[in-house]
């Protein structure tokens, strides 16, 4: 099977105004199959947009190779460079980039007009433009100008323009970040349905992990221009390749420890911890586990990784209740669907299964787990049960 997009060893440096060089893409490699919905996920400034723009040809990388549908569009070894207008891609911009002097229909028709072969009749173009507009549910707006549309309608127009000439690969640069939450939910679902129905390959940039989880068949996590991990949402969540991925996706409890062969576990401030994952090659380790993997019970369970803790805070969050617990110098957050089981001040037993404990090489510079837990502000919708308890 031909890969839809293949990227190898891609590197791109920018020179800032003050002369410092910054590597926006650093030796990136990723292979994307036809029909996939790939999400490039990472914090702001990690190089997502730059990577997307190099695929589109709007930015020229320094070295590496990009091929689309088996054809090299950029290759530094033989100096191939295909200009963007010949790459047969579509792109949906963060700002939508609708042309304000053209009606919605003319905006959507434009990509058809630029096609050199095969030529299509104007009537046919109009028909296809209208069809694309109907696909996204705004057929009746074709005579309007972009300035007369709401944010969500502008977005649909931009989507229709990206869909209209049936490009096999469509690029999305945070296209949902400019509308309010409700419209965003709806558009997300529609976008996914449209992609499944039409079968194009989507490369979607976002910094929002919920969005990534919902849309992606696979997620590529980026950090400072490097591709940290590529995998399905579940893989990324359950088997993060690096501590960075683990902490960026979802919430984690973290504690640092050192490998103690005599216990075949780690000794930490919280006591000995065992993990079923491989031991790090360095003596010090970052030990992470997710709040939903901790179990709170009132009587002592059997097995490893069992700690007697004090509940210091409870936070009702709807789906689950967050219990903040403390023992010795350590503390952790636990999510449990059992609401109001414990009140602040209660004693309880915490256990974490060794399968759920993730271990990464430590670098010593990480904040201790207690600080991390306390610095995180509670969600605004949370109901503090401290007073009630």
């Amino acid at each position: 099977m031909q890969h839809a997009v293949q990227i190898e060893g891609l590197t791109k440096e920018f020179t800032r105004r003050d002369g410092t060089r910054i590597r926006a893409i650093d030796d990136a490699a990723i292979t994307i199959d036809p029909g996939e919905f790939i999400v490039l996920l990472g914090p702001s400034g990690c190089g997502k947009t730059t990577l997307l723009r190099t695929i589109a040809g709007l930015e020229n990388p320094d070295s590496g190779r990009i091929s689309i549908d088996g054809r090299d569009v950029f290759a530094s070894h033989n100096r191939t460079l295909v200009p963007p207008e010949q790459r047969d891609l579509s792109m949906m911009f963060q700002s939508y980039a609708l042309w304000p002097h053209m009606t919605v229909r003319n905006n959507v028709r434009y990509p058809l007009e630029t096609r050199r072969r095969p030529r299509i009749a104007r009537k046919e173009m109009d028909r296809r433009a209208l069809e694309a507009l109907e696909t996204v549910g705004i057929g009746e707006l074709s005579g309007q100008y972009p300035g007369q549309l709401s944010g969500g309608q502008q977005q649909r127009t931009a989507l229709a323009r990206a869909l209209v000439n049936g490009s096999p690969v469509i690029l999305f640069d945070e296209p949902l970040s400019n509308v309010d939450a409700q419209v965003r939910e709806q558009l997300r679902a529609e976008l996914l349905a449209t992609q499944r129905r039409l079968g194009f390959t989507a490369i979607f940039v976002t910094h929002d992990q919920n969005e990534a989880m919902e849309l992606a068949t696979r997620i590529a996590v980026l950090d400072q221009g490097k591709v940290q991990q590529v995998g399905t949402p579940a893989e990324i969540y359950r088997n993060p390749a690096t501590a960075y991925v683990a902490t960026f996706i979802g919430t984690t409890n973290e504690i640092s420890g050192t490998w103690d062969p005599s216990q075949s576990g780690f000794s930490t401030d919280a006591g000995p911890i065992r993990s079923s994952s491989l031991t790090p090659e360095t003596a010090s380790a970052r030990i992470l586990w997710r709040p939903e993997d901790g179990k709170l019970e009132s009587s002592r369970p059997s097995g490893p990784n069992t700690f007697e803790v004090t509940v210091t805070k409870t936070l009702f969050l709807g789906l689950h209740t967050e219990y903040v617990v403390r023992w010795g110098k350590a503390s952790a957050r636990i999510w449990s669907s059992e609401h109001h089981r414990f009140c602040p001040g209660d004693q309880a037993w915490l256990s974490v299964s060794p399968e759920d404990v993730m271990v990464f090489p430590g670098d010593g510079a990480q904040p201790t787990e207690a600080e991390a837990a306390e610095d995180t502000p509670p969600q605004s919708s949370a109901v503090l049960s401290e007073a009630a308890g």
Partner: protein
Amino acid sequence: MTATQTPPPTRPPRGPVPKPRLSRMPRKPSSFDTLTLVLAFTLIAIVCLPLLQVVIGMVWKDGEFTFEAIERTLALPDLWTLIWNTLVLVIASSVCAVVIGFLLAWVNQRTDARWGLLNDILPYLPFLLPPVAGAVGWIMLLSPTSGLLNVWIRDALSLFGVDLATGPFDIHTWYGLILVYTVYAVPYTYLNISAALESFDSSLEEASRLSGAGYLRTLRRVTLPALAPSVGAGFLLSTWFGFGMFSIAAIIGTPAQIDVIAVRIVNLLTFSYPPDEDLAIGLSAIVMVFVGLSYYIQFRILRSARFGSISGKSTQHNIIRLGPWRPVVRGLVLIYVLGSTVLPMIGLFLVALNGYWTPNIDWGGLSLDAFRSTLIHDPSAREALFNSLGLGIVGGFIGILAASFVSLYVQRRRTALGAGIDAAIKMPASISNMVIAVGILLLLGGDPFNLGGTWLILLIGYLALYLPQASIASDAAVAVVGKDLGEASTVSGARDWKTFLRIYAPLMLPGLIGAWALLFIRIVGDLTASAILSGTENVVLGFRILEVFNGGSYAELAALSSTLVLITGTVLLFVIILSKRFGVAKTQSAPRTRKARR
């Protein structure tokens, strides 16, 4: 689904990434890019080669190395008077302009005497009333015996029993000259300071207030130091303007026997026979040194102190309520604006309509006779008018078109080449107009080109001198469209030409028309390039006004100047209407803001 690339946690840390080969792969230039580059290098050549010519001319003459030009310049008997006069005039007027500009900006940004119209009018003053016409207007007002304003003041004073034969003011004095220079320098300082005040992060001021400092103390300790860079920039622009200013000095300073360098350069080249190029080059070099020096000083000031940050977004500022002083302050601002623009215009029109310059205006007998005899019956004035209009239309068109191609290139391909082109095109703004005009004359006026006194040399001169303005205006027009809209077209499969014609051209049009109009006004009202490059055969409007000033009737002088003001005023009105109508300065890239504006 392909296999995941999840490495096991024990994977050894990756070695250092090999340094990428920074093989900048130049994209094959499209025909659009090629045309742009040709245009850009032509434009740069017509600016840079003349400058080079002046620099070389200092040490190279008739094929050999010589310091003759410099030696002869230094031997000028009145050289130090020239330099002294120029420095006093430029520095005094710049200081006054900073003070007035600051007061106006502060009133308009920070008090309830603010007046939106000020922002619309003040920046356009030099366009509305070109300096050559303004200088004539001020003479009509403040000449000691028959200046209209002087007569009105004398009449008013006589009501109180004070009788004066002349005065009380005399425009042909140091203070008169400084006054008119200041009026024309204020827009530079006002715009800079006003913009800085607007974007000034007022939390800095609030912090000072909360720590117990009063308003004045805060102004002195926090606001003013933070504004220093923009005050400096305004001052620099104002000195730059002063060093290159020819028309005001020629018309007001010459009768007062205050000689400045700019006027001497023109006299050496245009009004002496044979023209003395050596001395002109030597004096041009002095101008360049002074302009360079003021850059250096500004650079040092900026570097020596830590200035408060000016945050990009404008914040809500405390507006001071002036209470009973509000009408007074408003009145003063109004008097300044009227006094600096409307009064000189009234002077011009009254003298032109009256037919001759007399303090006793015959209100019933005003007529267009002077216009008629000047514009219709005087062939050289008529020719000058047509030459100027033609050059303004054609030069404006060529300048804006070329500048917009270059702006587009610079914005779309943010390469080192683009940045270099941009800097080279805007450079004349930082060197003196005067010097470039001298260079063009030296380069093209004589052998082998022999373009002296032709239409073409004037066209080249205007383009070179006013290119920076054209370039800045077209940058703004390109910025309005933004990058995304063009890229969206490229990704849709459109080539450069198609993107230009379908996306950029229609969206930039209102901005470009406005830019064209401003360039047109600059060219029609110009006297710097005109005085040096226009020979007596191929006269343009500014030069004709100078000729009439040197030996013609005042009515004719007023009529010509009024005609100039009418032309520039009409075109300016058109620009303002256009920009109000199409919102030339509004950005269209962010959908949110676009929606919010509606």
